[in-house]
């Protein structure tokens, strides 16, 4: 036995102190490449078993059940995207975080010095190494937490790692964020933690009622009918907070806008979508009957979120806040696909996680590039940068197309699938409400296109704004990850079969035949 997944999970966790040590002693470059190497190795550990489409490892744990790590049709896309993003963002972090830490240091020096005119000294190497070391150590734990949440097969295990991904990200925001970062990180912690505790109540009730915390056993057991509504509500509310569905969304624009940009690029595409994953794993797979009865309400919430998030994104004058609201809107899409009760819609929902993962990561990387190279993230101060940052412009347009759902990017593949699924169910059920919701959701796609095109126009087109004359593309540490994701976006967009061939059988299995008779001929 090769322990693929055990390695993928625990190597980053156990070696995170070493990442700190190496960065501290050997410098930032050594630390970066060490972290990158570890993450790359772990990613390969995920990719190898994924090729088969199914892989399961389990270990004896405690009375709570087994410690299982499972790659199946549902978790493979999530696991791959989480680790791919985590890996490429290590490289992106290097120049960006050096810039950020320097900036922070200078701010601090300025506030300490009595005379502001005195030239601020450069940051001492040991301070920089220390800070970057802590960053990489936390980063690895954060990535590993997200991955293990997706792989978990036991409710308690799931909850533990659901919180493990929260704690390091809390510190990352608090240590390296912008603005009122300590306050915002606390807000982020409280909201998501309260959500998680509500979820925990549901999970414990479900486990006790079923007599086991292992998902495999729960699926086969009968949960008492009286408890079902309570469990379902606890799980849904807990996860909607994570997904930032309106009206539980208010923590997100703060946290995602003020986190250091590489972390925003992980929080926004990778982390909040895990809420969607958890809905599929816990609600759809374990409680299918409850899932079907809640679908109408979920799709209303999803539709409202799509439109509301998009409308709020139109109102922003800050690039990162705009992207944060865009994430809210995109999670609405994901929930909309989830609520479609059809194989193809659910597949689209999973693919949306993938396309949002690549697309939104690209856009956040663009925002980071703007912060570094143009020293601003406010729309009125930007403009005309297409000629100054051509590579960034190309990559971010590809990212924006993925979010808008324009072929040949993967966003189109995910969106048509989830919309066709939703429409199919609406017409099969003959539900007027669902048809109206579908129509409104289609309007949301126009809103999405508007705010993204308008943002692109304000950043990249028009006259070059004052103070931007010397802006230029960043180093290859930042550009290479962007290229990688841009190419990935298009490859998946042209040939989604790589993912659909493993997702669709899973969804067919869960929903059983009959739901999609027509499409499944």
């Amino acid at each position: 036995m090769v322990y693929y997944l055990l390695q993928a999970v625990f190597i980053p966790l156990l070696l995170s102190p070493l990442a700190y040590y190496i960065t501290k002693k050997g410098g930032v470059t050594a630390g970066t490449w060490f972290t990158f190497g570890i993450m790359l190795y772990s990613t390969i550990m995920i990719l190898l078993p994924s090729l088969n489409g199914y892989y399961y490892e389990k270990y004896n744990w405690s009375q709570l059940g087994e410690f299982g790590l499972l790659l199946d049709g549902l978790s493979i896309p999530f696991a791959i995207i989480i680790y791919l993003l985590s890996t490429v963002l290590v490289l992106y972090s290097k120049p960006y975080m050096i810039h950020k830490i320097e900036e922070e240091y200078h701010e601090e020096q300025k506030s300490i010095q009595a005379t502001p005119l005195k030239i601020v000294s450069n940051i001492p190497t040991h301070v920089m190494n220390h800070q970057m070391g802590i960053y990489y150590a936390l980063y690895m734990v954060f990535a590993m937490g997200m991955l293990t949440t997706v792989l978990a097969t036991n409710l308690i295990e799931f909850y533990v790692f659901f919180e493990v991904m929260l704690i390091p990200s809390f510190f990352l925001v608090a240590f390296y964020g912008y603005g009122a970062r300590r306050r915002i990180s606390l807000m982020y912690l409280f909201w998501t933690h309260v959500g998680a505790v509500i979820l925990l109540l549901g999970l414990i009730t479900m486990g006790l009622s079923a007599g086991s915390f292992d998902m495999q056993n729960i699926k086969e057991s009968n949960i008492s009918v009286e408890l079902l509504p309570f469990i379902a509500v606890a799980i849904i509310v807990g996860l909607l907070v994570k997904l930032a569905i309106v009206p539980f969304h208010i923590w997100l624009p703060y946290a995602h806008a003020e986190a250091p940009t590489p972390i925003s690029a992980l929080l926004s595409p990778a982390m909040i979508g895990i809420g969607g994953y958890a809905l599929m794993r816990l609600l759809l797979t374990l409680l299918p009957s409850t899932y079907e009865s809640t679908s109408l309400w979920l799709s209303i919430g999803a539709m409202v979120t799509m439109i509301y998030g998009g409308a709020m994104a139109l109102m922003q004058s800050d690039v990162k806040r705009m992207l944060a609201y865009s994430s809210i809107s995109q999670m609405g899409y994901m929930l909309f696909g989830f609520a479609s009760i059809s194989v193809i819609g659910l597949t689209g929902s999973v693919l949306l996680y993938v396309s949002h993962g690549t697309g939104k990561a690209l856009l956040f990387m663009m925002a980071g590039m703007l912060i570094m190279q143009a020293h601003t993230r406010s729309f009125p101060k930007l403009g005309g940068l297409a000629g100054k940052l051509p590579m960034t412009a190309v990559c971010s347009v590809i990212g924006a197309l993925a979010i808008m759902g324009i072929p040949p990017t993967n966003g189109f593949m995910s969106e048509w699938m989830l919309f066709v699924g939703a429409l199919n169910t609406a017409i099969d059920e003959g539900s007027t409400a669902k048809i109206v919701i579908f129509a409104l959701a289609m309007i949301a796609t126009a809103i999405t296109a508007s705010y993204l095109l308008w943002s692109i126009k304000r950043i990249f087109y028009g006259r070059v704004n004052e103070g931007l004359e010397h802006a230029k593309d960043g180093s290859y540490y930042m550009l290479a990850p962007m290229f990688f994701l841009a190419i990935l976006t298009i490859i998946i967009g042209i040939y989604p079969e790589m993912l659909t061939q493993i997702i669709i059988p899973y969804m067919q299995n869960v929903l059983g035949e009959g739901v999609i008779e027509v499409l499944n001929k």
Partner: protein
Amino acid sequence: MIPIEFIFRMVEGGGEFIHNSAFDALAINVWLIWILPMIGAMISPLLNKVSKRGRDISPAIFAFVSATLSSTLIPVMLEGDEIHTQISWINSIGIKAGLLADTLSIIISNLVAWISFLIIVYSIGYMKGDRDLARYWFFMLFFIGSMQLIVLSDNFLMLFFGWEGVGLASYALIGFWYRDRSKDYVGRIDHYALAIPQFTSPTHAGMKAFLMTKAGDIFMITGIFLIFMHTGTFEYKPLIEDHTWAENMHTAGLLIPAAVLIFGGAIGKSAQFPLHEWLLEAMTGPTAVSALIHAATMVKAGVYLVARIGPIFFIAADIASAQFFEVVAWVGAITAFMLASQAIVNKEIKKVLAYSTGSQIGYMMLALGIAGLSTSFVEGYSAGIFHLASHAMFKASLFMIAGGLLHVAESRFMDDMGGLKKNMKKSYIAIMAAGLSLAGAPIITSGFWSKDAIFAALLESSYVFAPVLYVMAVLTAVMTSFYTMRMIGMAMFGKKSKHIEELEEHSHHIHEVSALMFIPFSILAAGTIIVGISGPFVEGFIHERLGIFLTNSYGIEVEHEEIKLNWIAVISSLVSFGIGAGLGYIYYIKRAANPEVISKNAFTRGVYKFLENRWYVNSIYYWLFVIGPLFIARIFWKYFENVVVDGINPALEFSMAWWSKIVRYIQSGVVQTYVYAFGIGIIFILIILLSV
């Protein structure tokens, strides 16, 4: 599993063949027709680093090879055969990638390919010295490749790939001069209607084009979904072979909605009423781009789509589909009339041509719509396609000539031109040929014959309102020949304008355009005349080919009869040309009368203003779809998001702080208080216990 395999299977002779015809060996050509321009697009940014010269020449080579490949398919059309090739794509949902080269797609593919090639050659001269040529060539070739994908695809999903591809390319090319210098704007800079500016910057125009066509695409994709749900496939062929899906949809009341929704996509892409407003702003792009959008790609995509799905709905449900064709015909007629009326008053040469394109596309839609309302489907159908072909030729030519005029006069306004025919003899001859074709000058121009065919189809239709449509079409023809003469007269005839004289004073010599620009548009202008002279033969040929195509592919019965001239149609063509062109000649060429007379009369002034403000449609759209929604969003942002939702955090915070104050007050640390509380508690518990 991996994309490499995907590519290999394609190269191995085009995958699996559905229909075994003698021409299967050509399948690989069908793939290459659209893939080659895509490859060329990818290469041009790379060549930019190697050799500027290579970068500028390679697009022409790619376009030429692609065009040659599409010409190799002509024998297939002559045989009345087709090539259908498929490879696996998204197996898990049973979706295949496939191409279908039949008579319709071969005709349009050839038109697209050759006209695009000429425009690419013209671009080499026209865009010389621009600093972002790598981007230009990328999107031009991507544009052509996407259009060929639309035309050759055998299913709706790949069609949609190409469909959005042309949308993307047009967005990028309309906003090509992204720095938004005021000389790249369209519209008079001080022109407002209902407080909405009627002038736009290139990037604004690009965005507008993208969003408006996207609105159409939302309808279209919904329509496609409806069909997909009832058939489980995106391909056209199964829709033709088995009609049970149509019966099911008809009983569910979804057939006509689905058809009209798909037509919504065509409305957006072909700039038909009510989604026509983007087309006029699209003039901010380089003129070669306008030529490409208006003649070969983009707007023709919508016509192609209707030509592709029209027969499907026609045979799938003969009686039930009439409403769909009524919608198509009326949208076409209204657009044709509306945009022609606006072209009469416009002062910018490119915008006149843009209005004219929308109007002419309206004719094509009208023809395709009337086809479904007649006993003889092929009449209107072939008239529509014939007009598409003839329009593609003369409009590409006109745009390329206009590009030269703009270049020479350094202004987009026709007021700033005038008297250019003396210095630009070749352009003058070409604009006369192509312009007369647009105006429908009798006998010798292709425009005359194709318009005549549409009139004839209208007259032969059994549709109740056909006479109304006919009157609208004839009025449009009058306006068309008038604005064409006006355009030629203002630009070429009369005295030189002040602007030109100033240019000449500053030793700026007014000269003919270079051969690289001159040859492409001359070829097309000559083409319209050649087709014009042999008009009835070309018309008969297209009629016959499409008749065979409709019978073979769709099973639509076609009576094979000799083409006869419909004398009413011919006479109305002649009369409308006579009136329109005559007025234009008097006012703008001979300058015997002064067109300023209309400003003396309140009524005509009002009409003029109404037309100049584009029937106020543009302004109303801005109020309804931009300013209104943004206002609502701002209210939500200000009073809901910022107050109510954002208030949750401080509310929790303060209530907690308040609660802690109370709790803190109780925990005073005074022992006596605790003893009292303890005592009271004990008493309470005792009472409860005793009372049980």
